[in-house]
């Protein structure tokens, strides 16, 4: 499909268990993510997919297990450290600033890269000004990439859902991430919007070499675009491998279609 070469393991999740009181969200889950690959996490509702994503970028602290990121072993991630390490994400329920324009929303994605201090930024003076121009240029590249020129100055709240999703992806891209976490990027979209989103995800992966971990319900999409798929059910891992392998895994079929008792 493309010339990108899938590299070594950069993120290794080892025996992760996560509990909320007596509720076991994740039980003893291990899988790894290689550089430049598209890794999908699938599973029925309540399988623990979003929890898994939250463990990866440090929002949740697992009770057991280790996360090895680029050779560095730790018990859990911290959200701000994850962001600094090049993680960016989108959310299942869109989390944009509805009253702000698309452009301003994307600029917030650059926040972490701002070097000048708060005071200089507020005064928009000297280095802060030069810096902002540089960031604006980056953001314009993202706008161009996602083909959203026509809504640059439109408040996000006024946009249709599919476009809001695209803007959210844009904000994540504005941070120039090395690993992109996408939580149901295609939920609630029509066929055409899904096709567009697929194309953008593949392009991001292809052009910038970004590693992508995504959660998705649409099986067609997952099987089409991902390199490897991990399947969760009731907080346990029941399958892991290339899309074709997973598709024929009896446990996976059972989890999705049910079994005869």
């Amino acid at each position, binding site marked *: 499909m493309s*010339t990108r070469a899938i590299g070594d393991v950069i993120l290794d999740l080892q025996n992760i268990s996560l509990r909320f009181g007596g509720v076991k969200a994740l039980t003893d889950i291990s899988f790894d993510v290689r550089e430049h690959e598209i890794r999908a996490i699938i599973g029925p509702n309540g399988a623990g997919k979003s929890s898994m994503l939250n463990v990866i970028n440090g929002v949740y602290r697992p009770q057991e297990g280790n996360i090895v990121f680029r050779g560095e072993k730790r018990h859990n991630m911290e959200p701000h450290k994850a962001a600094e390490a090049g993680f960016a994400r989108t959310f299942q329920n869109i989390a944009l600033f509805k009253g702000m324009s698309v452009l301003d929303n994307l600029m917030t994605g650059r926040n972490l890269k701002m070097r000048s201090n708060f005071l200089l930024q507020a005064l928009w003076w000297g280095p802060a000004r030069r810096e902002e121009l540089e960031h604006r240029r980056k953001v*314009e590249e993202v706008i161009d990439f996602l*083909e959203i*020129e*026509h809504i640059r100055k439109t408040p996000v709240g006024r946009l249709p859902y599919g476009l809001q999703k695209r803007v959210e992806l844009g904000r994540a891209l504005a941070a120039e991430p090395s690993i992109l976490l996408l939580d149901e990027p295609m939920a609630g979209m029509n066929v055409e919007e899904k096709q567009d989103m697929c194309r953008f995800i593949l392009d991001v992966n292809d052009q910038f070499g970004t590693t992508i971990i995504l959660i998705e319900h649409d099986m067609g999409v997952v099987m089409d675009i991902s390199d490897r798929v991990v399947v969760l059910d009731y907080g346990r891992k029941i399958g892991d491998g290339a899309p074709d392998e997973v598709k024929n895994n009896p446990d996976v079929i059972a989890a999705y279609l049910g079994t005869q008792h």
Partner: protein
Amino acid sequence: MSDPTMGERLDTFPRYLLHHARVRGERPAMREKDMGIWQTWTWAEVAVEVRALAAGLAELGFRRGENLAIIGDNRPRLYWTMCAVQMLGGVPVPLYQDAVAGEMLFVLQDAEIRFAIVEDQEQVDKLLEIREQCPALQHILFDEPRGMRHYTQTFLQSMDEVMAMGRIHDSNSHDFLDAEIARGSPGDVAVMLYTSGTTGKPKGVCQTHSSFITAAKSGVEFDHLGASEDILSYLPMAWVGDHLFSYAQALVAGFTINCPESGDTVMNDLREIGPTYYFAPPRVFENLLTQVMIRMEDAGQLKRGLFHYFMKVAKRCGAEILDAGVKNAGNVPFSDRFNYALGNLLIYAPLRNVLGMSRIRVAYTAGAAIGPDLFRFYRSIGVNLKQLYGSTETCAAVCFQPDGEIKFDSVGKPAPGVEVKIAANGEVLVRGGMMLKEYYKRPDATAESLDAEGYFLTGDAGFIDADGHLKIIDRAKDVGKLAGGAVFAPNYVENKLKFFQYIKEAVCFGHDRDMVCAFINIDMGAVGNWAERRNIAYSGYTDLAGKAEVLELVQQCVEEVNAELARDAMLAETQVHRFLVLHKELDPDDDELTRTRKVRRGFIAEKYAVLIEALYGGKTSQFIETQVKFEDGRSGKVAADLVIRDVKTLPVVKKAA
């Protein structure tokens, strides 16, 4: 403009370019919005770039007399391509960028295209799809490198590469291009534009430098256009109108052209640029007005009240006041003038600003008939909108409406140096310096369309009124007769129907029949909004088009048209007796419309023969299922049970008595 030509022969477009680079080298020639910022190229810079491109093409082996295809949106580099090709004595052939690969095939084969310069990956993919069938096609150059990384074919090259190569070549042997430019003569074919093909296969219209320069000059002089004009170039480059305004006139007058960021941002870009000279087909003006009206419906009561009050004032006297600026006719009462000035402050000026028309000195429309209400609306809010008449074969420059002599139903007076006469069968004949040299490789068609005295047969039926204005009623070949013998001009009736904002397309039938019946397409935006305000729920076009309330709405429009037709003794017989609202929108992708959105009446009649039978057979409804093509090339089916309605017709006033 002083005359700084100093003995230069300004008789080809490349010479014009070098002339401007010398005379007004620092003035902006082109702008394009890229990465959110307007990028500017001066005339001097454009000349350098065009030379680089021309030299690069010559290096690749492009030869004098060859055709080169240009496919893409309005991008500066594609305009440069035109001039670069002309420098080498070649002929640029712009194609409609939204055509599917299959439609491009004919032109690529007919013009024996060896070189194509295209905008981006999308267009490259189309050409790759049909490359097998075009063995002549050897070089494809692309402007936008995005997405092209994995294309390894050696016949694909980026324009950057070719221009870099050309820069070296041109600096090593500057004389080469100068000699090539010197070899150009005004009688050379400058551009080949394919006719949209309402009938049969498209034909390549060969226009010389001389004819397009004549056409451009007459327009420039007619409206006193100077080097300070700004225009927005957003219409397809393959269309004669864009070629005249964005290329020929821009080069002759030396004004600035501005390319929008993308097709979706045209409205925004229009506001940012504020063109002084503007050209759009009627449907663009119509869409703009529809948008304004929809937004006004949602505005607060005070704003809406003000808007409607002052629009009434404008309707009463706006157009007269605009004309008065030229003829200085002070017959507008003082109270009206005062009201209009107030309205200008509160409504018209802000509205012009929203439309991006604040700086417009002259705006033109052509390509189809424009509704009198629509036309009057723009003139009444102070936009100097005028009509012109012309075709691809006549460089779109036969008639212009002179300032101060605007008639809503005429297309104006013949341009200086153009002769217009009406043939015995009512067809409009034209002769002048702006005419085609020939149809490409079609001597038969050339001979058919030019008569012995050198008049071009336009194929339009019309007449010249008492003031010397030309009035067009229909295509000459479309004018038919009802079974009763009355003259039937289908376009005339269709246009009357389309002037209602709720009706997007109409197709009328009646030739050799005893009455006129019509297919109608509703306007999704306007009718959708209308339905929402009445709490009528609908799921899509087919559903909305079938609603009884909508049919009632359309029926009212048709009855109004009938009332109007009944007043004209000549046309009273052609009132619409029965109609139906089609279950799908007529679409160029389904071959029902041409790329310029003209209806293909014959094709439609064949495709929907069942419906026509039902209309004339007296049925009250008819089931139909139709195949449709989606934009991504897949196809699906739309089916519906169409209700056929009878319309009240009025007795023919004179004849019935």
